[in-house]
């Protein structure tokens, strides 16, 4: 049975259309400055301590 737009919008995990043409983007870093910043920050302060996490 078709799901209504409302039902689809309420799903936390969305229905994603898999488009193999987008696989090529996985080989390209689209946001290099952001990735550099993430590397710099996490290289410096790391991840939350085990005490903080679950």
């Amino acid at each position, binding site marked *: 049975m078709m799901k209504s737009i409302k039902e689809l919008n309420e799903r936390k995990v*969305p*229905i994603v259309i898999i488009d193999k043409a987008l*696989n090529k*983007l*996985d080989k390209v*870093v689209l*946001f290099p400055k952001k990735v550099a910043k993430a590397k710099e*920050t996490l290289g410096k302060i790391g*991840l*939350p301590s085990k005490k903080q996490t679950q």
Partner: protein
Amino acid sequence: MKHPKYQLKSGELLTSFEFVSEGPKGVIRKRIQFTGINLEGVYNLAFGDEDEATGGIDDLSVSNNGDSEKVLATVVSALYAFCDYHPEAWVFASGSTDARTRLYRIGIARYFDDIKDDFEIYGQVADEWQHFKKNVNYVAFLARRKIVNLNDEKH
């Protein structure tokens, strides 16, 4: 999440997503990417507009297409999809500018009640991570899907 969102398309690894924003400025193709960094299991989350002329991505653009809520809901739903496929991943996000980081903070705060049961969320203050709280200024954000122990739930 009871928020309207756009239909997402993704590659098979659920790391690169695409959706189309529709509003007064027309149709704008947007991309979301989760990029692995040099720490195992850690990914950077970023999104921006595709520049139709160059095919490049502009993460500084302000598209003003009247659908920022819907765009944000779509990015949050991509986070759910990504973490469903990569359940142990840490996801890092920061804005391109201080103003953009502030918008991220406001956006996370808006969705916090919806997502706090599903994600551990941290904000960076100086050189440490703190559990995310509304109305605190952070310079970056980190999230991970909460691990549900099904054995614990039975008791």
